[in-house]
């Protein structure tokens, strides 16, 4: 989310309770901000499937195939070198570099997919304009209500969030 309501809470459990209360009222576009990976947070805002594992698998497959083919091309086809009469297409000897090719391409695919799926790096974000948001990386917890939600109602939801224990509620954006 970018714009909408940002409500500050002092404990992770209060944040989780507020998120659940909002979901019960049918609000779907929610966000939680926390200084650490609070267990149950992603379930509370609604699980979104990630394609990072799939990207990692594809990257790994590509790396393994590419590394194996490079070795085969170089040593068995383009410039076969007779080293002590050993076979030029020496599959067991190619396994290590094939494995390393798999690992390195899979790792880069994982990290690149991580960055793309989160649209990082994004050095500025509307959330950073929220007063007190700089403590979300230390010890504060925020609940976000996206203003694109069909049930978005800033006045009523501000009141609701305050009833749920928010210390402050900020409205970002004009809607």
């Amino acid at each position, binding site marked *: 989310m970018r714009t909408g309501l940002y409500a500050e809470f002092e404990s992770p459990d209060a944040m989780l309770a507020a998120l659940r209360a909002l979901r019960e009222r049918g609000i779907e576009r929610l966000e939680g901000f926390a200084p650490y990976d609070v267990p149950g*947070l992603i379930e509370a805002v609604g699980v979104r499937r990630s394609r990072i594992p799939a990207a990692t698998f594809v990257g790994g497959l590509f790396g393994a195939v590419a590394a194996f083919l490079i070795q085969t091309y170089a040593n068995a086809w383009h410039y076969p070198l007779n080293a002590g009469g050993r076979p030029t297409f020496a599959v067991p000897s190619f396994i290590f570099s094939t494995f390393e090719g798999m690992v390195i391409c899979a790792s880069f695919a994982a990290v690149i997919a991580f960055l793309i799926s989160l649209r990082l790096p994004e050095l500025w974000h509307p959330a950073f304009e929220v007063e007190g948001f700089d403590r979300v*990386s230390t010890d504060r917890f925020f609940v976000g209500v996206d203003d694109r939600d069909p049930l978005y109602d800033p006045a009523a939801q501000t009141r609701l969030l305050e009833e749920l224990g928010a210390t402050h509620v900020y409205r970002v954006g004009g809607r």
Partner: protein
Amino acid sequence: MADQPEMMVGRPDDARITEEVLAPLWERTRRGWWWLLAISGAGVVLLIVTVTYTLWMGPGVWGTNIPVAWAYPIINFVWWIGIGHAGTFISAFLVLLNQRWRSSINRVAEAMTLFALVNAGLFPLLHLGRPWFFYWLLPYPTRFQVWPQYKSTLPWDVAAVSTYFLVSLLFWYLGLVPDFATARDRAPTRFRRRVYGVFALGWRGAAEQWQRHRITYLLLAGLATPLVISVHSVVSLDFAIALLPGWHSAIFPPYFVVGAIFSGLGMVLVLLLPVRAVFKLKDLITDAHLDALAKLILVTGWMLTYSYVIESFLAWYSGDLFERYTYLFARPFGAYAWVYWSMTAVNVLVPQLFWWKRLRRNPVVLFIASLLIVLAMWAERFVIIVTSEYHDFLPSSWHFYAPTWVDWGILLGSVGLFVFLFLLFLRFVPAIPLGETKKLRYQLEHEEAR
């Protein structure tokens, strides 16, 4: 785990954890830090001087000479890369095994891995003789149409070590992103806020960000775990593929992996104990952590002892004259017998101290024992490499090996570089993962409430 309550002393709140971990980044530079930086900086200068001298004069300035064609550079390479493995062991193996106690020590361990790998990468390059042609090892379409020979272990090394370095760097940085965000938000000056802000990539702790971060971190841990085993197996095959008695042994891959983790655990403790004392982190790096690391040293120590026994047994059992000579005479009674016996004594006997809980939790004992282990593991590689070569098949070519001042200078210089980088790390990077530590605290509190 019976030790669970001790994973954290007291239950420091989020603000307290943040303050404690980030204090070394903001406080006035300590005088001791400057002293250590100056000493290790002198080591870096020594490294630059000796490496430049080697490049200028050629590898003839080393003691390395036929029949001892592999000596200090390879010993140092294996030693450093082995030290690196314990970092990945702590950060990746233990994540997969759900060992939560690792969270407060994994950053230091991973930093150790990276800096050890910087050194490890240097030595095979120097050992090439003409390091400026290192790119001949990469499969690029050359004009003279010569490719690397993939039946040789050298290109395996290139693939393994470069992959290991890059994946370790990615893994380390990925873990750091949320902590750089905390540093950005707590930084006292605008300049530092900007620098940490760039490294934090705009992290804001959103639910989705944490979810994806967890997924990616686990994926990398899953990739790094077999990677470590493959890397040190490749390193061991550099030897085992050769036909030299003392090297040509099928036990080498597991034996090397175990030895690597054993030596690296020693180095983790050598680094962790002073850090914990100087920065007063005893509530986050607790006695339970020291205890667990000491137990791991005991376990890997026994696995190593087993390898020593089997290695010698197989040399005898093979019935081969040269195998028997190398293992049963040249090593225990040859010119380097004192190196052999001191390394065996340390590696076999010192871990036995850790049968006692009181010794596992005594920082002084742990520090001295770990330092001895780190040194003995260097000696182990010396024994494996030099004693297999100096008395080869033909007595007329036997030759006593002695390192020169350049060999020593490069070794000491690489230790200087390692300490230098580690000091910079302590000053500029959060040394304990904040997010993971806070999550651990949250989980411990909830388990206690139940």
